């Protein structure tokens, strides 16, 4: 069983000795064999082979040099930044009400997580009559979410068809959205259009009239947290028949997404593309612009809002990827917590916060991270890696090899079958429902009955173990104050 399940050929059977041999150097630690072994006979441990202890020349640094000396190439990796940078969510604490304002039991009382994303008018004018209440102000197009969590952009190509279908079905069941990434939209998935955000990225793969018309919203991708400033590269081997059709490129050719969008060199250019897309869809859909969190995100975000973006998506440096140069993933970009706090602050100061919703992404691990992000000023959260883990991913970071043993990040028909969309959809729905319940519990504890009341409410947060500067950037008080 284990021999057949390992796409990396870590196990082999020797008929001469009637034994299964495991090669530790081939093991990626994906736990596929461990999970499926009917006798629980397997475990995966770190091979204890140590180098001579050295604070600077860690085994990681040494092995990377070995690899590069051997190949002369750029080191590739998958998933998000795994280096031990601080996780600021773990330095933020939520509030709860005691005595002075009663907490609410979400099991007994209604609790509102519904979220609308899109440009909001500055003020609302209403027409009152005796019985009716009519809105006079025309509302720009909005996305309606039953819970403030969406599935991040993951392209068909980077992940398998079954994984895309699972995300689409789960988004439909949950009343939220998934994002196609740059991979185009497979014809079978058009029926989930009203729960789909389609991406227009630098390679423009799979972008055509029906693609834009089918979607609920369109996202212009400028950058990605795992590889800010870097384009994409889907190797030709992964461009199989269906992918070639969906992406509208010849079969077997490399799908190269350039680093910049070649028609966007300024905020004015971005405005032209935003309005070209708005024109093309007759102003019926919100347009989102996604950027990686970098040093001057607040100024960029301000420009994006002024350029007409209805939603801005910020992707922090923990954001995942199917493949990225390791040196970029691990060293470029800033934590999403700082980017979010500073962007929200800047847009408020400029009086344009209502003109765009903010979605944040990049390494959200649980409902507490989501709640804290909303208190810091986010409207909603994109989850990518967490949704993959719900489908079975064990974060072995070998997405770029195309040999995903869990049938997620692969186009190999033998491996792809391992992901049954019926099971994966249920697991995704379970995860989001569980998080939503927990968010309601946290809201209830704070004596709030709607997520709206937590949004941007930094008084609900206190910092712990942070410097004065960090607290100032996050706009929160230290615990105890």
């Amino acid at each position, binding site marked *: 069983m284990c021999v057949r399940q390992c796409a990396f050929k870590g196990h082999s059977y020797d008929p001469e000795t009637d034994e299964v041999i495991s090669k530790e150097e081939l093991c990626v630690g994906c736990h596929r064999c461990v999970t*499926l072994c009917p006798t629980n006979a397997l475990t995966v441990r770190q091979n204890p082979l140590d180098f001579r202890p050295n604070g600077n020349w860690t085994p990681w640094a040494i092995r990377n040099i070995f690899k590069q000396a051997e190949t002369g190439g750029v080191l590739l990796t998958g998933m998000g930044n795994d280096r031990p940078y601080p996780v600021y969510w773990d330095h933020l604490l939520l509030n709860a009400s005691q005595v002075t304002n009663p907490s609410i039991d979400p099991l007994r009382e209604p609790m509102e997580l519904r979220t609308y994303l899109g440009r909001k008018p500055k003020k609302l004018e209403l027409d009152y009559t005796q019985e009716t209440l009519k809105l006079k102000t025309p509302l720009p197009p909005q996305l309606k979410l039953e819970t403030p969590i969406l599935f991040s952009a993951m392209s068909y190509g980077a992940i398998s068809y079954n994984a895309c279908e699972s995300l689409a079905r789960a988004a439909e069941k949950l009343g939220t959205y998934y994002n196609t990434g740059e991979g185009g939209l497979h014809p079978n998935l058009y029926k989930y259009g009203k729960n789909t955000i389609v991406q227009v990225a630098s390679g423009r793969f799979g972008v055509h009239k029906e693609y834009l018309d089918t979607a609920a919203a369109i996202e212009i991708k400028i950058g990605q947290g795992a590889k800010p400033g870097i384009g994409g590269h889907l190797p030709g081997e992964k461009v199989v028949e269906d992918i070639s059709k969906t992406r509208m490129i010849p079969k077997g050719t490399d799908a190269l997404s350039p680093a910049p969008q070649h028609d966007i060199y300024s905020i004015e250019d971005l405005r032209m593309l935003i309005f070209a897309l708005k024109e093309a869809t007759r102003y019926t859909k919100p347009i989102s612009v996604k950027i990686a969190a970098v040093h001057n995100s607040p100024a960029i975000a301000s420009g994006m809002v002024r350029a007409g973006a209805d939603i801005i998506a910020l992707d922090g440096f923990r954001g995942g990827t199917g493949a990225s140069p390791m040196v970029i993933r691990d060293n470029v970009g800033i934590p999403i917590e700082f980017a979010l706090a500073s962007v929200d602050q800047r847009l408020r100061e400029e009086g344009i916060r209502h003109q765009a919703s903010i979605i944040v992404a990049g390494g959200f691990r649980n409902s507490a991270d989501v709640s804290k992000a909303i208190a810091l000023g986010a409207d909603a959260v994109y989850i990518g890696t967490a949704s993959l883990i719900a489908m079975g991913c064990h974060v072995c970071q070998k997405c770029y090899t195309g040999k995903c043993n869990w049938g997620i990040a692969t186009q190999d028909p033998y491996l792809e079958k391992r992901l049954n969309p019926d099971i994966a959809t249920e697991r995704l729905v379970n995860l989001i429902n569980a998080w939503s319940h927990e968010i309601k519990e946290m809201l209830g504890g704070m004596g709030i009955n709607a997520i709206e009341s937590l949004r941007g409410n930094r008084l609900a947060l206190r910092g712990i173990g942070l410097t004065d500067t960090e607290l100032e950037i996050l706009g929160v008080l230290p615990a105890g104050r």
Partner: protein
Amino acid sequence: MKRIFVKEEFCMGCRLCEIHCIVEHSKSKDIIKAFKIEKPRALPRIMVEEKGSISFALQCRHCEEPYCLEACMSGALYRDEKTGAILHHKEQCVGCWMCVMVCPYGVIQRDLNGRKVALKCDLCAGREIPACVANCPNQALEYREG
């Protein structure tokens, strides 16, 4: 009657159905003993057919008009009145292999351990859900009316 259906698109050829079939039809019903101690080892009634990326698990279809039942000269094969399953009296079987020859699915095997008799799926009599279905990690097998 309730039958086992296969969803070929999700069978990944892990063969856990075969393993759990062996365990279910072993004396001890313990996976370690069934494989390491019991001699002869129980045989699986389910077989995974595989070529390239296509695979599926197959066992007795429990046909409405079973050729095997017609061909069985000793009357060892019979239909269970209650469940409709096609079952097999081991003691009555003479090992003529006519059932093996006529089965259009090729799912009756020969049990050559001891007295030679036919071997086929019994839908795990006594279990609510057959072992292969219950233990398929990808829900590629389904047990339902049909």
